[in-house]
């Protein structure tokens, strides 16, 4: 039977409950919620005067009511050292979600640490140190002392390149401006750590270097643009699942025609209709289905191209648009580079340099370089030529009266983690620039995003470009100390089979050395660790909210706080910045990452002085923060563009709607933000003019991909699912989620399953030359033969195990183009036997 909570009654929020602003800390969309809390020995009543809603709760409430919350929105947590009831429910007045709660965000309360209700007992509550052959609780001072002594010894003796750092760079969850600043200041200001990487990729780089190099920041529109456009183009993004309430609250109304009045009001003098939608994705997703339901099949074009051929498709569309003259000439003349630049000598095989694998130039030059006929593109992509032409028409063919079409392009991991990232990204931005669709109402060429953003750090220029391929550094036995901040490469890196094998071996060398030094002094222990490091071992310090999979290799583990356990600021996919107010205590002695970074710095300073390294020690001053707000004021307030206008008090006053970055000015105490970027046509280049990219197709770019495709039977496409957040780091402790996903699913064509003797729910092994992993087979009638889709990053079967080490020139991983074979391991295990394997697609009947 499906999991049921057997909860049939919840405490009622009293009228005088505390109410805190909360932005959901999971996906990029950042839905507004409120956290209500009140003493555990009190409760509200059903009479209107006795509850927070002022309504009679003895009556059934209607659909979309504000006056209801699910059991997943309730918990009992600690606040100021006392147990309180907690309800976290969607905010109907937040412009992002208008009261909608996703299957992720609407579980926030249930995903909080609670001793009273035994939820998220996996959370770390105190520092742990490898001692006596396992992890033992210890004090912060004891743990930090060992971290500082080993780190200082290694970097003083062998240089800062011996310190490898994996650190989140995002907002939401364990991120936020406070915490990216804290870690950034430690590693980029006090030190100049070069060998660092980000949570989901093996280097410290941008996922979208191309659009930035072209002068187009990747979050350049407003969610409202999805309500205003004529056409939505969704590339490699399954928005109903991964940006759920952005899709439901802003895309769907345009498909239904509910925004027509708004369109006519804001954009008079041109014809308006309901939105058309183009979806570019090898897989038929639930997003495609929902668009067909809402817009009608005649208004939805699903281009199910061959995996990895997006660049060819974009170039054919760009060519067709240019040939038809459906371009915005005035925009091109006024706001883009007008003189062609010389093509690099080895182009297209090689770019200007590995640091610049493209060729930025003028519109005309790009048209020439990207030129690809519809017929050629149809051959490469496997698409119907007529559909490519139709896509070009829906994007750019002028409306009645010659008015320019307003087209919003959203893209995400389908191309970011896909073939030839740099040029593919550039080729897509070409289309938006040529049609004048950036900085316009109903326009934008934007990342859809995964998590929220929250990046303010000192310069990372010393890292260089291309940035070091950190996983390969670790695999090759280099680096002596590894600091890991809320990253779990065991689940979310490429080439993970090999990475884990080496990481286990190298960290075990240090564990054995620590075991052998048991009973000795601190100096003995440090010497033993350093000797092991010099012999090829790796000393690992992990800062996280849970004891992660990669944390099995850790020697010191430091417990961090999360959003809501600390005040935390982030921005969403339309640059909307909000403050999540602290509404509960962190577990045990867990602290905000920024304050942990500060404590590491302070211990480094102390230890370095003891070592006689006074000058170096001086670099670790400036961390006298008492609270996360101090880190915010030291970081964002001083260093973000117009950050001096932004304070906690002003953000608190703006509630769940916040403001859209960058801040422009104050009106009184109210921060006025920026709805859209580039409205003035002044782009992010030295001369303010955007660049086009000469980006010809060059096949599967990353090493080993072509060979893998030839050798194995199945495409192992991969990505996210609605129900799960990221790699399941909290979901793995949630009964509702793990009941549904005891293993990652792999969607397979039913005929393929039959030919391999696989039944629904069977446990299968996915394997290739890079490694192996496991999944439960999910028969999917719409899956094409030879093409599968596996849940990414799941703890019980990481897909990264079978992704090879191939990256592009800028060290962007290519998770999507993975091929492997599949064999049955076992009949559906007991945890799977009760699951449904019906179609995920909604139908009206």
């Amino acid at each position, binding site marked *: 039977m499906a999991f*049921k909570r057997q909860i049939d009654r919840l405490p009622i929020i009293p009228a005088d409950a505390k109410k805190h602003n909360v932005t959901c800390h999971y996906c990029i969309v950042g839905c507004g919620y409120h956290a209500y809390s009140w003493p555990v020995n009190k409760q509200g009543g059903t009479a209107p005067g006795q509850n927070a809603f002022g309504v009679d709760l003895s009556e059934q409430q209607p659909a979309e009511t504000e006056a209801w919350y699910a059991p997943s929105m309730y918990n009992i947590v600690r606040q100021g050292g006392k147990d309180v009831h907690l309800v976290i429910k969607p905010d109907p007045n937040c412009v992002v979600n208008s009261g909608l709660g996703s299957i992720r965000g609407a579980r926030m309360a249930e995903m909080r640490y609670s001793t009273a209700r035994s939820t998220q007992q996996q959370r770390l509550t105190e520092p742990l140190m490898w001692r006596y052959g396992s992890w033992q609780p210890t004090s912060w001072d004891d743990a930090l002392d060992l971290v500082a002594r080993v780190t200082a010894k290694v970097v003083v003796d062998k240089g800062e390149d011996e310190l490898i750092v994996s650190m989140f760079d995002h907002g939401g969850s364990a991120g936020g401006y406070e915490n990216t600043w804290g870690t950034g200041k430690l590693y980029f200001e006090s030190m100049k750590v070069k060998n660092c990487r980000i949570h989901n990729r093996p280097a410290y780089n941008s996922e979208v270097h191309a659009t930035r190099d072209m002068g187009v920041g990747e979050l350049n529109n407003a969610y409202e643009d999805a309500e205003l456009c004529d056409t939505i183009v969704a590339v490699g993004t399954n928005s109903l699942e991964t940006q759920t309430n952005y899709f439901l609250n802003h895309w769907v109304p345009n498909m239904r025609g509910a925004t027509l009045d708004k369109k006519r009001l804001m954009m008079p003098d041109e014809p308006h209709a309901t939105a058309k939608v183009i979806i570019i994705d090898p897989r038929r997703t639930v997003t495609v289905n929902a668009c067909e339901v809402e817009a009608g099949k005649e208004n939805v074009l699903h281009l199910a191209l061959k995996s990895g051929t997006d660049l060819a498709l974009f170039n054919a569309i760009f060519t067709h648009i240019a040939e038809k003259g459906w371009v915005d000439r005035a925009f091109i003349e006024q706001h883009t580079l007008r003189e062609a630049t010389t093509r690099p000598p080895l182009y297209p095989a090689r770019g200007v340099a590995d640091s610049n694998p493209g060729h930025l130039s003028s519109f005309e030059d790009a048209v020439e370089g990207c030129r690809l006929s519809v017929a050629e593109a149809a051959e490469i992509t496997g698409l119907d030529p007529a559909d490519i032409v139709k896509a070009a028409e829906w994007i750019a063919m002028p409306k009645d009266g010659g008015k320019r079409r307003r087209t919003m392009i959203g893209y995400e991991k389908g191309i970011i983690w896909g073939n030839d990232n740099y040029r593919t990204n550039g080729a897509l931005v070409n289309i938006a620039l040529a049609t004048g669709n950036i900085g316009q109402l109903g326009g934008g060429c934007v990342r859809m995003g995964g998590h929220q953003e929250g990046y303010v750090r000192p310069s990372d220029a010393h890292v260089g470009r291309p940035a070091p391929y950190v996983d390969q550094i670790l695999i090759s036995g280099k680096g002596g100390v590894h600091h890991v901040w809320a990253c779990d490469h065991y689940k979310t890196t490429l080439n993970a089979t090999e990475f884990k094998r080496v990481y286990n071996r190298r960290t075990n060398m240090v564990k054995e050395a620590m075991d052998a030094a048991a009973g000795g002094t601190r100096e003995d222990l440090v010497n033993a660790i350093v000797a092991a490091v010099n012999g090829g071992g790796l000393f690992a310090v992990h800062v996280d909210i849970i004891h992660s999979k990669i944390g099995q290799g850790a020697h010191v583990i430091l417990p961090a706080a999360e959003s809501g356990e600390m005040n935390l600021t982030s921005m969403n996919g339309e640059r909307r910045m909000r403050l999540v107010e602290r509404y509960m205590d962190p577990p045990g002695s867990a602290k905000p990452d920024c304050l942990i970074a500060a404590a590491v710095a302070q211990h480094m300073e102390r230890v370095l002085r003891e070592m006689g390294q006074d000058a170096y020690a001086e670099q670790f001053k400036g961390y006298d923060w008492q609270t996360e707000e101090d880190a915010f004021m030291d970081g964002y307030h001083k260093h973000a563009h117009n950050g001096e206008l932004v304070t906690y008090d002003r953000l608190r006053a703006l509630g769940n709607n916040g403001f859209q970055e960058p801040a422009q000015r104050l009106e009184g105490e109210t921060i006025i933000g920026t709805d859209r970027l580039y409205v003035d046509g002044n782009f992010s280049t030295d001369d303010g003019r955007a660049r086009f990219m000469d980006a010809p197709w060059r096949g599967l770019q990353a090493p080993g991909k072509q060979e893998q495709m030839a050798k194995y039977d199945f495409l192992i496409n991969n990505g996210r699912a609605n129900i799960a957040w990221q790699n399941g780091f909290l979901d793995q402790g949630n009964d509702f989620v793990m009941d549904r996903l005891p293993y990652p699913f792999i969607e397979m064509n039913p005929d393929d399953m039959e030919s391999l003797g696989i039944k629904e729910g069977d446990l299968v092994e996915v394997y290739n030359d890079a490694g192996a992993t496991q999944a439960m087979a999910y028969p999917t009638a719409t899956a094409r033969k030879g093409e599968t889709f596996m849940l990414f990053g799941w703890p019980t079967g990481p897909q990264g195990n079978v992704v090879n080490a191939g990256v592009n020139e800028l060290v962007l991983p290519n998770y999507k183009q993975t091929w492997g074979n599949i064999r049955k391991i076992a009949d559906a295990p007991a945890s799977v036997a009760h699951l449904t394997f019906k*179609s995920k697609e*909604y139908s009206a009947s």
Partner: protein
Amino acid sequence: MPKCDRLVDVGRRQFLRGSAATAAGAVAVAVAPSAPAKAAGAARVDYPSSRLANVKDLKKNVPLDVLYPDADAPGVLLKLGTRVEGGVGPDGDIVGFTIICPHKGFPLAYSADKRTFNCPGHYSVFDPEKGGQQVWGQATQNLPQYMLRVDDKGDIHAEGVDELLYGRLSNVL
């Protein structure tokens, strides 16, 4: 206007392009509970035992509209035709569910072909053959299912619900 009709009405107004007509039909006629609902002071609510139908009233794969635990709580009884875990009746194939989506309270439509309950609001899909498990969707709980008992006469009684119903903070108001 009865509140269950208000729930339906929202579906009708908001989802013209979806399956509103189908959804609206789902709760048109329903059997009233035979015992009045009552609140209680116990930790779990005290459910009424309500006769909802007789096994003879059910046709295979055709949902029968019912109300439980009170007149403001629409649901269905469903004879699936195949024995399922939690099923009752001589063939172990009778189940009962609320048909109000636990995400935002929209009325679900039954797809006889797929044997799923589908929500026209935000596309959630629930499987009555698997205890109301959400196949895919937005809700943070699986579909609330009735605890059923069939007596010697073949009368089907509902005697509890296993998840919180949408729109009420106590299953029995």
